């Protein structure tokens, strides 16, 4: 079953940032992370920031010396040590300064409590180190206060309530994708009947 969700909007933003060159004509560095409450193990603050760092570094032609050196140093011990959160944050702050960088995190409310705060604090530190870095966040409205608290210089707020046009486009596209089998028609019909009232109840 398919629904129009906040992730659809996040992925649109991420693609837009990837496709648009920056003001200086250089490519932007774009990194993303989609939280999923069923994957808590993989979304500790260290894992999330590590994943963002990896994406920014992979966009560079050459791996920065700081990271190569750290890799060689850590590899020597006990079969290879992993980075700690503070090391990742420092590296991410440094590599983000080299070009326009966008860090996009979807569904922050699906990240478990303690890690949630660590992720926001880390992002705050990165912006302090690299003031041109931009952070895009989505989540349920109740985490808005916590997000604002972490970014004292201000957070732009947008309420994502799909306009009717989005809902109609979405339903038409999903109808057009359906097969002509009777079973699919029934399922689809059921989905439409369920989706429309649920979506409109958000408005």
């Amino acid at each position: 079953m398919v629904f129009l969700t906040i992730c659809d909007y996040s992925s649109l933003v991420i693609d837009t940032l990837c496709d648009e060159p920056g003001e200086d004509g250089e490519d932007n560095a774009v990194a993303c992370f989609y939280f999923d409450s069923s994957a808590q193990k993989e979304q500790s603050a260290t894992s999330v920031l590590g994943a963002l760092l990896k994406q920014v570094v992979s966009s560079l032609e050459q791996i920065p010396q700081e990271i190569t050196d750290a890799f060689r140093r850590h590899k020597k011990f006990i079969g290879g040590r992993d980075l700690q959160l503070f090391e990742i944050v420092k590296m991410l702050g440094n590599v983000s300064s080299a070009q326009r960088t966008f860090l996009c995190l979807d569904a922050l409310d699906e990240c478990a409590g303690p890690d949630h705060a660590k992720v926001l604090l880390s992002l705050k530190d990165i912006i302090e180190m690299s003031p041109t870095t931009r952070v895009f966040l989505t989540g349920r409205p109740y985490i808005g206060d916590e997000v604002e608290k972490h970014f004292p210089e201000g957070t732009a707020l947008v309420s994502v309530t799909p306009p009717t046009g989005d809902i109609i486009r979405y339903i038409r596209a999903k109808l057009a994708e359906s097969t002509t089998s009777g079973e699919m028609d029934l399922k689809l019909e059921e989905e439409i009947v369920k989706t429309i009232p649920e979506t409109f109840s958000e408005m």
Partner: protein
Amino acid sequence: MYNGRDFVVADDRSEILAWLSPLEPHLRHNDIRKKRVKEVGDWLLRTEEFVSWKNGDGEGESQKATIFCSGNLGVGKTYIR
């Protein structure tokens, strides 16, 4: 591939990237983008908040480094199975 300067070879590059993180968030992004519907969400890209956040240079009105898009749609899950 040897770049002649600091011993970073192609194998090292992938090894370093894997050491930074074993996760592959682009896979999820690709799954979601494949199912996206054309023109849905374009309004968001045109909002003043988004444009000023995207083009901001850290000064004046455009100093907001973060943007938070809140919504309840989809019950927070990408796809309900």
